[in-house]
């Protein structure tokens, strides 16, 4: 399960090309000439590309090339880093996420994030799932109960935890915790899911479960996933973007990028010759 296995059977694991639904928006997210800086250090330079609605888009690239930074730009989580700034624009459904009249809290509710290291709160399973709802001011028990069940089912976790809803979330296994984090995010009904290496700390079985889940999730959400695992990118994504030192090198259908990479760097990377 790592990139230094050069000749893995890509074709066999590629997903079927998704049937295009009528109202699917090809330019759901638009990144326009976007650059990002931590202080004086430029991490992303002049990115411009579009992300389609309700598909899985994978970000790949060597460590430190800025994938996480880009992902965290979509929900403006980078703002928490002092002295960080950006130029250019990112638009979701045509609306700039940096515009003055956009409320960052509602943006974060629209673009939920799952982190590399699962980070459930040290509270009960139930409290974890309803966290986003409670901070949004939803208090009705019946509503919360229903959403908890729906979200946990959506994260394929319901059957495993339905009897432990009021146990501490930290008593779950690593894979269950990660799915709990997914449940916590989808409870607030976002449009976009931002997954930053969601499986890097999990074993193959747990990884398989999450990958299956991503297949389910893309029916309802636009999924952006950062991964170091080429097979995973090949298995779960429809489009793949390859980044190198903060620049977008190649961005095409996953099948194309793995089978006929146009850029020699992309080829070297996806075939595992550097990383």
């Amino acid at each position, binding site marked *: 399960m790592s990139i230094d296995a050069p000749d893995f059977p890509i074709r066999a694991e590629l997903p079927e090309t998704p049937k295009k639904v009528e109202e699917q928006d090809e330019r759901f997210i638009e990144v326009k000439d976007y650059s990002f800086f931590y202080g004086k250090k430029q991490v992303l330079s002049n990115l411009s590309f579009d992300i389609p609605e309700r598909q899985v888009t994978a970000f790949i690239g060597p460590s430190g090339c800025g994938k996480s930074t880009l992902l965290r730009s979509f929900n403006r989580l980078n703002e928490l880093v002092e002295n960080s700034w950006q130029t250019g624009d990112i638009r979701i459904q045509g609306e700039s996420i940096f515009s003055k009249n956009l409320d960052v809290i509602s943006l974060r509710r629209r673009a939920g994030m799952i982190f590399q290291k699962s*980070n459930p*709160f040290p509270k009960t399973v139930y409290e974890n799932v309803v966290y986003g709802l409670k901070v949004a001011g939803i208090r009705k028990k019946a509503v919360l109960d229903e959403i908890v069940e729906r979200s946990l089912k959506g994260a394929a976790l319901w059957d495993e935890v339905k009897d432990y809803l009021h146990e501490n979330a*930290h008593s779950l296994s690593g894979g269950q915790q990660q799915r709990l984090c997914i449940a916590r995010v989808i409870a607030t009904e976002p449009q976009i899911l931002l997954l930053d290496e969601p499986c890097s700390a999990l074993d193959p079985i747990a990884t398989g479960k999450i990958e299956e889940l991503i297949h389910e999730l893309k029916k309802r959400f636009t999924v952006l996933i950062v991964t170091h695992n080429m097979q995973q990118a090949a298995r779960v994504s429809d489009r793949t973007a390859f980044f190198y030192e903060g620049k977008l090198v190649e961005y095409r259908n996953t099948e194309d990028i793995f089978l006929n990479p146009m850029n020699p760097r992309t080829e070297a990377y996806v075939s595992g010759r550097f990383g």
Partner: protein
Amino acid sequence: MSGVSDFIARPRTIGETWVWLTGMGLVAALVMIIGLFGFICYRGVIVFWPTTIVELELSQEAQERFGLPEKIAGRYLGESPRVAWPSTVDEMRPGGGLPEKKYFIGNEESYGSRFGAFTSDEVVARTKPLNLLVAERLEFGEAFLYPVEIKLSNGGAISADSPDFLTLFREELNQINQRRKAIQRLEKVQIGQISWRIEKLRTEERGIRRKGEPVSSSDAARLERIEEELSGLENRYRVFALEARSLRELQGASHLVYRLPHGELDEISLDKVNRVYAPNRLNLWQKVRLYVESLHLFLTESPRESNTAGGIFPAIFGTFVMTVLMSAAVLPFGVIAALYLHEYARQGPLVRLVRISVLNLAGVPSIVFGVFGLGFFVYFIGGGIDSLFFSERLPTATFGTGGIFWASLTLALMTVPVVIVATEEALAAVPAGLREASYACGASKWQTTVRVLIPGSLPGILTGLILAMARGAGEVAPLMLVGVVKLAPSLPINLVPPFIHLDRKFMHLGFHIYDLGFQSPNAEAALPMVFASTVLLILLVVVLNIGAILLRNHLRRKYTTDTF
């Protein structure tokens, strides 16, 4: 079979040669702590153990030398060489350098002193009389005596020769003690409540009159009603006072007639006796019971005879209330300050400077905080409150004088750096992932703080509070300036409205120890109380800390943050 093989069998880890030194350091520290603690505990715990009382027959010289009668009774305390310096300018003290046995001889009003120390040739005979009684009195300490009879209030008498004399004596004493408590309740609670109401009405009346002429009609009506209520209250006051007086008269009616060891007859009102027992006739079980009883009295009674006898309940209570008040003040104050410093303030040279100042505040001598508390809390804020809200009572200060509230605030100020530092560390230790998760769920900064950061750092915050309490509860110097007294007439929380008297002066175990041991004119008699109080102060701090530690462990289990 030596040399090389030995060397190989016990290889020495190179570079670990000085480990024993660190071990020695630890052992030395432990020995000192355990030694000190053990000594204090031993001396504190044996204070109430009943010991035998011996009767001494003194030699002629000794009687003249010490001005004592030929026979006295005493409790043996210990032996040490007699100090040889001259007692007057031209005469060396006889027996200087010889070992002398020290006794507590009681009967202070007859002998003029509570202690005596005699060399072996000053004592002619030592006996252990079985019918000797120890009487704990409310004044002049213990008396060692032989009972003759009890004269009862109804004119009857109980002779000391009757077989159940001691039982009857105790019953009579019990009755009198109950009555004394009833009188106290009557005076303190019932009469106290009435005086409080009277005081309030008078204050209001004064306030209205101060407005000057002409009196408006509503004010006039109010004055009239106050007048009416006052006369009603005064009537009730008179009734209670009368009841108290009649009870008091009953108190003085029975007397104990007794004989001192040298034969002199005397008489004491039973109202002046707290407890009696026959020290030389006790079996182990009775001794244990007596011990537990003494301990109970010590913990629940008020002090008597300038604190050298009786209990120390007001001091325990004062220390406890002050520590709790201090915690209640220091916790929110410190946590809020740390939250701002760590979460909201823009990190930079200014914040660094503030942080260093806070750290240094922890090193400022406590007396400086006492002076600051006196100037700022008592005179400035307290004086301000008085002139704003209690101007009718002036010039009598209400809050403009030391009290438990100001003392608690002063200590809170002194210990706040500890809480700030601990809270900042705890906040920094909350995993960054939790913070990000909260923001990513759409929580605002405040919601993240309240729902994730504070719960996550509570165990650390409580550790800070434990340290603050440990420092605050044992502190004495600043308290002397802002409200502690050696004898407070009433508790800061009691049954007299408004029940919580935060403006009151209070007693404190630490100050009690200092006052008893080093300020008391009768330091020798106070010594056992010093040890017992010290043990209690240590226990109180330990109990408060254990409570906080249990709470912290509970929270830690609840908010465990380690993943995988």
